[in-house]
């Protein structure tokens, strides 16, 4: 560790961020104080030509519900003012780990002390006859940023994913023209765009493989209720459908365009636009070529540092957070030679942003303390102050985070494992070898009202909420989300939570305004009972009541009600 000496300023730490999406941009925001202090030299390389935007809102933009500028997360001005370089529309083609540089598409190189991979994910293109397949494997990424994902095989006309602004423009055109849109895949993003497009006037059909939509997040009950709700919203739902091939026609300009999707059982679903919503895959080519361990993403430990290179980190959709094996050979030979570790990128923005915050906080602490990345592959970060509260959320695989369907009028939110049934016997205690008294027994409570589009399941361990799914009950869903995020205990009477969405929770109809203990005059804290007693003592006008009890002598807003209380008292005293 270099000793900070007198006036000599330490050389700024060179940080290169590959990827300028929402997670990369968040990292930039968080690391800026270090750049402003002259302690870090920051370069961000982004393949898209734009400054970072909020991809989560792409569906809203794609159906015309919001404007392009609502998506903007930055214009880079603050980062540039701090002295950071932002290279948009630029591809990174190689990471040269031994000399610690990255090579750019234009042939130049950038040196780094710390490299952050935030390359995100691309849309999966399923195997369909008629759509050319791309072999990625160990292929070197192309030098042209604009066609980074599609150079070898651009999607045919009338087929699109929904991952960037260009895709959104394609979808928007179809929606505005009121066209038929076939959505392949019923994950959360597929359902969101389907419902939004239908609401915006398109004719929408969702084609999916399993029995229920969002099957990664929902149990059968919730999925069934969602299916009904989606149909009610005008979306055609086609389940148990295995898509096999695509039919094309030639339009007036002679261009081959999407015509219909053909399923394994021979079903043909025709439309104007086939929207692929078949999940995403991490962009890991750079890491793979550089010999870093890769599974469903770039493998990093809980401090977000590559398993094999202490100078390289990954965050967001390209990162696969998993504990590093203790004595593994982590060289290039690792790849494919082992079982994939559990977990993987969550595909959600929340965990990605938390990773960006956490990594920036760690860098800041280390660099401020004068620590540099050592030349070995193992560095003990133990001394760095951990961001304790975010540690548990870093390894956020599917299920560990809250998933919420963004749709108007259809409220779906789910988190954790909700597979268990209320009448499942909890035998996990036996499985773990402690026969008596599981300290945290599993329990499930459930409410199903498909007719009214409502469904709730709450899964607890030792009373602590570990999973839930909630459809059609927005307040309950919001409360369960808070309880889940905090690892909170549920009230013993679980039905308390259901009542948030009940008509009786809305006090407009609750409570008797003329109950004895009801307050009539808030200014003076006078109850119905006190007014009635005063009336019984002979104070039978609003003015007399005011003089005797002060009711109505504050803002005066309750005088009408005092009159009503007096009328009732008078009516009751008449024999």
């Amino acid at each position: 560790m270099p000793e900070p000496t007198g006036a000599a300023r330490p050389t700024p730490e060179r940080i290169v961020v590959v990827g300028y999406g929402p997670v990369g941009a968040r990292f930039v925001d968080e690391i800026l104080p270090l750049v402003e202090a002259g302690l870090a030299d920051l370069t961000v390389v982004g393949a898209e030509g734009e400054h970072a935007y909020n991809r989560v809102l792409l569906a809203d933009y794609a159906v015309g519900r919001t404007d392009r500028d609502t998506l903007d997360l930055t214009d880079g001005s603050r980062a540039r003012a701090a002295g950071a370089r932002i290279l948009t529309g630029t591809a990174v083609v190689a990471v040269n780990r031994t000399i610690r540089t990255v090579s750019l598409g234009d042939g130049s190189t950038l040196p780094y002390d710390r490299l952050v991979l935030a390359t995100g994910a691309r849309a999966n293109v399923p195997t369909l006859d008629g759509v050319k397949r791309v072999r990625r494997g160990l292929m070197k990424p192309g030098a042209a940023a604009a066609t980074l994902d599609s150079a070898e095989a651009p999607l045919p006309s009338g087929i699109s994913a929904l991952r960037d602004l260009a895709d959104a423009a394609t979808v928007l055109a179809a929606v505005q023209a009121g066209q038929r849109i076939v959505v392949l895949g019923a994950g959360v993003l597929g359902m969101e765009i389907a419902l939004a497009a239908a609401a915006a006037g398109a004719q929408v059909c969702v084609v999916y493989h399993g029995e229920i939509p969002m099957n990664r997040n929902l149990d059968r009950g919730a999925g069934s209720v969602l299916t009904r709700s989606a149909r009610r919203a005008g979306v055609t739902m086609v389940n148990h459908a295995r898509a096999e091939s695509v039919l094309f026609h030639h339009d007036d300009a002679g261009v081959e365009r999407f015509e219909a999707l053909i399923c394994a059982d021979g079903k043909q679903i025709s439309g104007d636009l086939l929207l692929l919503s078949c999940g995403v895959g991490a962009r890991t080519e750079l890491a793979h070529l550089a010999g870093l361990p890769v599974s469903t993403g770039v493998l990093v430990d809980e401090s977000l540092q590559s398993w094999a290179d202490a100078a390289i980190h990954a965050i967001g959709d390209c990162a696969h957070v998993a504990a590093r094996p203790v004595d593994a050979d982590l060289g290039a030979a690792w790849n494919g030679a082992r079982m994939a570790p559990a977990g993987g990128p969550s595909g959600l923005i929340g965990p990605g942003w938390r990773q960006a915050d956490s990594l920036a906080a760690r860098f800041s602490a280390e660099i401020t303390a004068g620590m540099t990345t050592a030349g070995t592959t193992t560095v003990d970060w133990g001394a760095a102050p951990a961001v304790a509260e975010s540690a548990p959320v870093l390894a956020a695989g599917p299920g560990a985070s809250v998933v919420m369907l963004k749709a108007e009028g259809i409220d779906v939110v789910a988190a954790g494992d909700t597979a268990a049934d209320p009448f499942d016997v909890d035998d996990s205690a036996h499985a773990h070898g402690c026969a008596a008294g599981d300290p945290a027994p599993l329990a499930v409570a459930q409410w199903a009202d498909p007719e009214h589009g409502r469904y709730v399941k709450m899964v607890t361990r030792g009373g602590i909420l570990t999973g839930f799914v909630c459809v059609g009950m927005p307040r309950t869903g919001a409360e369960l989300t808070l309880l889940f995020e905090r690892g909170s205990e549920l009230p013993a009477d679980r039905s308390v939570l259901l009542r948030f969405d009940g008509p009786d929770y809305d006090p407009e109809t609750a409570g008797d305004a003329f109950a004895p203990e009801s307050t009539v005059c808030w200014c003076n804290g006078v109850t119905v009972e006190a007014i009635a007693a005063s009336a019984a003592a002979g104070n039978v006008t609003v003015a007399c009541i005011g003089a005797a009890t002060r009711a109505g002598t504050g803002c005066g807003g309750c005088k009408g009600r005092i009159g009503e209380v007096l009328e009732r008292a008078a009516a009751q005293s008449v024999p």
Partner: protein
Amino acid sequence: MNPVDTHCPYCALQCAMTLTPAAAAATPAAAATPAARPAPAVRPADAIGLPVSIAGRAFPTNRGGLCKKGWTAAELLGSAERIREPMRRAADGSFAPISWTDALDLIADRLRASRAEHGADSVGVFGGGGLTNEKAYQLGKFTRLALGSSRIDYNGRFCMSSAAAAGNRAFGLDRGLPFRVEDLDAADTILMLGSNVAQTMPPFIGHLDGARQAGGLIVVDPRRTATARLTDDGAGLHVQPAPGTDLVLLLGLTHLVLAERLADTDYLARRTTGFDQLRYSVAGWYPQRVQEHTGVPVRQLRELASRLAAGRGTYIITGRGVEQHVDGTDTATAAINLALVLGLVGTTHSGYGTLTGQGNGQGGREHGQKCDQLPGYRKITDPAARAHVAGVWGVEPEQIPGAGIPAVELLGALGRPGGIRTLLVHGANVVVSAPDADSVRRGLKNLDFLVVCDFFFSETAALADVVLPVTQWAEEEGTMTSLEGRVLRRRRAIDPPAGVRSELWIFQELARRLDAPGVYSADPSAVFDELCQASAGGIADYSGLDYTLLDAGEPAYWPYPAGSGGTPRLFLDRFAHDDGRARIVAVTPRGVLAPAQTRGALTLITGRLLEHYQSGAQTRRVAELATAQPEARMQVHPATAAGLGLTDGGWAELANERGTVRCRAQLSADIRPDTVFLPFHFPADQRANLLTAAATDPISGMPEFKRTAVRVRAIAGPDLPTTDHERVMADA
């Protein structure tokens, strides 16, 4: 004596009232005041045995009405508990009378000694938002010139500092309501964030009627308070976010206003700077994520955003609920940003405001009680401001010390080496009202010397070496600046008890004994004239005012420079920054998740009750109020109570690393199951502030009062037999 027009001693609404001294009370009340009073205002029964009777008086703010606190205020004038002569604490802890001359000589000696031995900054002064403008001004001057100390701050730091900092940052000026209270009457939509006005300043709620009739009263509060209930029956909407998530809620609303194209882009371009950074900062706060953090459903967020943008007459108002946090300044800023994006501020029909709490919470933060401030809301670090004030005071600018330290830091320095050795307290009861109250009590006990000016032996006065009895509202002249920035006259109706003096006289006497530079008049009118001069050219400019003008009934809203007619509505043409524009400052939540709600781990929020005011030093001594609310009760949700074995009226213990509170539980579905509520008015082991932390907002110094982690359990109460288990054990 004749009936006298004045204003209520308590909150910042400053309800107008007429006091009729006992000797004159026989005269029919109607003859004393205009006939337009809506309520039978005088209750002769009250006057029995009391020095004055109180009548409500027609005025735009309270329209003749008063709340329970105002009606009963006269009980304190002749209270048997009143201190009627200076008291000195003896070695055994008991108090004995001491003459004014001896008391003042002793205090002057100790002040001189502390300064000589430990430096001028070893003497601290703690003021209050209930002091008149004249007292607050003189206290600041006395501290800086007579004591030579920079160590002055006040309890307004616990109330208004976050909103004040946010207002100054955004508008270049902080006047709680930059419009008149009655302007709210015409509004279609009023968004109240974290304010329970129905209990804290009840006559105010009449001004919400217009919005309620339009179905547009929106109350944001984790509790279903009396104010939240005003939204029932179609009058509006109650939004119930988890405690401490207000900032996220506001960012989410701003996001929606932008996403749904509801922003006033023309206004933003003409009247503000910084919009782009705001746009980027809220892009990530889409409604689903906001729901995840706040618990407020997306549908309600959308409803709220579209209502706010629905048209003319929309006000956004913040209160302590959103401001008393370690991110209170940023939260108030987020509310302001939302108002700016909607184009509300500085128009004739809409606006943003904060509801000032204490009687002179507005004036008290303008004239030099704040550690970094000189009269006229001037910065003490600004050379031009120092030169101007030094000129008025007749001293050299170098004789005015620099900036001091804010309240929580000042209280934290009590009795510490190099900290405060001697403290003067005026109009504050920090043993009850300050966060981490027990460490404040310990700090006071470690002082070399403590002087408290009060009417009663408050919990703080009880620790003093010398207590000086001072005048109450009905016994003194002065001015108060209300929540709408209107300067009001407080008038004397009766003479104070013989041994009681005004603070102005005390400052004069002490200054004389300390050979202080400058003049210290004991005449409120003369002090006001000097204050007006000192404020001339400042932000809060009073220079066009005097008692004659105010006594003529002039509705005097500051700034009121000489030659002007005052400013009822601010910012119509320009904001107070040099470029005339409002500054949008993008803010980001830095909070962490609240702790898990397990086995009694809950979030405590603190607040007020209708019957009591602040630390309760006054209202707990009014029989009618004390009978209605004799003790602290912890509000808790029945479902949570069931899990903890708490019963309605049964005893509960709230504890954390700072302290333990024992009180009865009150079961109510009006509170979220993860939250409990305690009023902060009560003493001893019912002090809510035993539990709150001295953590503060980095910009304003505001403590975190509204989000404290506590552990709650059921206990056998002091007046209960014992638990069944214990009884069985005893029998055995």
